[in-house]
């Protein structure tokens, strides 16, 4: 006799077994290009990755100020969960910058998560979970840096190189595009940027010998508008900086994995590009290797490279230049500042890429010298097979991807500085798609570390320094008109520093290290500061002495 099965029904969204309302106010409906152009003026919100197109990470809010910052308290905590097997389990991190629109917060996590939260109470309104394969190739962690919002939607990339558009009121997917080849080692971690009726994204995977690219997608349909490769093909401009008879360009790297900045008057998108591949074995890619380790200024309508500036020609130290290109003005001139992994601060004329000046911003630099007028002289690099070479800064750089902020009132950049060396021993390997393609054995110093939040004026003069206790900085800073700079440390302290002196005004131990970008906003007239807290990432490169510290997965919001 056959027993009938009990009907178990149909599987349903796991989120139904929760108290989530699965809905949020339609706050992103009115966000468009015109509104993002004036993002800083609506300081109650943080509607684009850097808070504004210029990358300053500076808010006009001043309710929390240098006088009362000592009274900051936890307003609410959102606890995300990390369960089961995920890709890069040991390196997942909470790297995002939360966006806030009229009382609703949108924040991304590792492994395909995006949460919509009530920005006043922390209540989770809805969530989206993209399914991420456990075997996806990630260098160097399971992370995501943030989302974009416009026209009733929320946009994010996923670790397995997908771009998704979600309904901002309920988290349901509207469209999805595959934007990279996971078999080739491509992934995605960048926060998309809305410009006009497009989304700009870039690829990750430079450690696997991919060919970097920057893409524009239609906001409404996901249709691709343009793609610009950051490594030229033979015959294209810049191809003369690669071996003429080789295959090196096909695997050249130069990935754009951190959001760029944008000047609407010049119609230029400033994209930082990553290291060439293989990272440390330059003999297989003779030449300057354009456009790796560069800023490329793209015509945002066509993707055409209008000008470029290369910060580390023929890189042999893994000195990506993906981090922010901060746009500012001085003496009537349109300028761009960039703090590079190679330890130098560059200021360029952003209309044409002309160098203004170069200044070191970290104490220990011995890989080479760059003069104030930009002449580069390499001194120490992995050269002979099997011969160790120690150099400063190590491959995580004097400043990793985490962002500086800029207070225009004081003409001060607040820079998260890392002062850590490393040893690379050249070990040549043949290229195979999807395999790490470093060309070296690399060990980052476990001890002898230093770091600080350092304030530099736009000429490169250091004005103050808040030293960490034998620890590099590994999180973005946030500047506010309240004369406060916020910064989180690897050991978990969230600091409020005086913007003019660096004096510590307040700190809170968050229970996990910081590797994210805080933002600030108001709801009902009250200012909040939000910081994702979840230690992780490429810790063996950034601060290997803290790679056993353990993870966190919380978003903590402070107010008076």
């Amino acid at each position, binding site marked *: 006799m056959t027993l009938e099965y009990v009907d178990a029904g149909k599987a*349903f969204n796991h989120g139904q077994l929760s108290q989530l309302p699965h809905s949020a106010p339609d706050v992103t409906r009115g966000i468009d290009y015109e509104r993002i152009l004036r993002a800083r003026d609506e300081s109650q919100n943080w509607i684009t990755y850097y808070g504004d197109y210029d990358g300053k990470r500076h808010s006009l809010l001043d309710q929390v100020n240098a006088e009362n910052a000592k009274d900051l308290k936890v307003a609410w905590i959102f606890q995300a969960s990390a369960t089961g097997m995920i890709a890069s389990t040991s390196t997942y991190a909470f790297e995002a910058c939360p966006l806030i629109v009229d009382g609703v917060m949108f924040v991304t996590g590792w492994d395909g998560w995006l949460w919509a939260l009530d920005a006043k109470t922390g209540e989770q309104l809805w969530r989206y979970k993209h399914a991420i394969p456990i075997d996806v190739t990630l260098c160097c962690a399971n992370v995501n840096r943030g989302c974009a919002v416009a026209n009733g939607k929320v946009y994010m990339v996923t670790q397995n190189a997908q771009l998704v558009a979600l309904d901002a009121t309920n988290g349901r997917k509207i469209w999805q595009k595959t934007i990279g080849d996971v078999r080739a080692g491509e992934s995605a971690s960048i926060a998309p940027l809305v410009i006009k009726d497009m989304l700009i994204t870039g690829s990750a995977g430079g450690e696997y010998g991919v060919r970097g690219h920057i893409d524009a997608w239609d906001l409404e349909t996901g249709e691709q508008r343009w793609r610009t490769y950051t490594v030229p093909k033979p015959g294209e401009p810049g191809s003369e900086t690669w071996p003429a008879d080789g295959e090196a360009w096909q695997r050249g790297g130069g990935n754009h994995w951190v959001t760029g900045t944008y000047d609407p008057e010049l119609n230029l998108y400033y994209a930082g590009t990553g290291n060439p591949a293989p990272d440390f074995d330059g003999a297989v890619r003779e030449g300057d290797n354009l456009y790796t380790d560069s800023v490329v200024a793209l015509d945002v309508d066509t993707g055409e490279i209008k000008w470029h500036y290369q910060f580390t020609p023929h890189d042999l130290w893994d000195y990506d230049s993906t981090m922010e290109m901060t746009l500012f003005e001085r003496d009537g001139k349109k300028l761009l500042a960039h703090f590079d992994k190679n330890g130098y601060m560059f200021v360029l004329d952003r209309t044409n890429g002309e160098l203004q000046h170069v200044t070191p911003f970290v104490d220990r630099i011995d890989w080479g010298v760059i003069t104030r007028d930009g002449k580069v002289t390499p001194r120490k690099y992995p050269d002979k097979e099997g011969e160790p070479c120690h150099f400063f800064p190590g491959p995580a750089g004097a400043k990793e991807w985490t962002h500086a902020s800029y207070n225009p009132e004081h003409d001060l950049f607040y820079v998260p500085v890392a002062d850590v060396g490393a040893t690379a021993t050249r070990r040549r390997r043949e290229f195979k798609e999807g395999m790490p393609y470093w060309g070296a054995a690399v060990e980052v110093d476990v001890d002898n570390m230093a770091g600080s939040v350092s304030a530099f004026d736009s000429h490169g003069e250091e004005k103050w320094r808040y030293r960490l206790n034998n620890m590099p900085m590994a999180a973005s800073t946030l500047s506010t008109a309240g004369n406060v700079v916020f910064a989180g440390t690897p050991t978990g302290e969230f600091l409020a520093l005086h913007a003019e002196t660096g004096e510590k005004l307040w700190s809170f131990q968050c229970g996990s290290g910081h590797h994210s970008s805080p933002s600030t906003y108001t709801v009902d007239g009250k200012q909040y500061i939000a910081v994702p807290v979840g230690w992780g990432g490429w810790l063996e490169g950034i601060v290997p002495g803290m790679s056993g510290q353990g993870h966190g997965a919380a978003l903590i919001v402070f107010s008076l």
Partner: protein
Amino acid sequence: MTIVQEREDLLAELGGQNKATIGAVLGTGSIAKATERADGTMEATIRIPEDAMVWEPAVLILPHAGTLELTIINDDKNTHACLLPSNGDKQFISLVNHSKGSATLELDGPGCYWYGSPAGNDEGRGLTAAIVVTGEVPPEAKLDRPAQPRP
């Protein structure tokens, strides 16, 4: 040293409850391939046999990314559950003794996904299995470069 002829015997020792170790060792069970329908969607059945604490197949292969219609059967004399990956949210189904249900999954490819039973006493045991999406990314998502050598 293991010789080829011993492999099936050794796998049998690893692939069940209270054999070589407490639970079945990951990835040591049976393998099956989903069926592709005319419309491109795929279908397959996963099942918990009696007193085995495993999913059959332990590895389910999909020919490509897309939509998978799963039939899920609990032939065990215990209550289990199933939490499956899918774009949007994980898919959950409770599986009382001798029950049958279904799930619709949307998965990208290529890539390897894991699922299991989140019911009490099940996690960490043999009730963890894989869905492996084969194939390539769409042609338009590939890099503009000549075909490269692969491992």
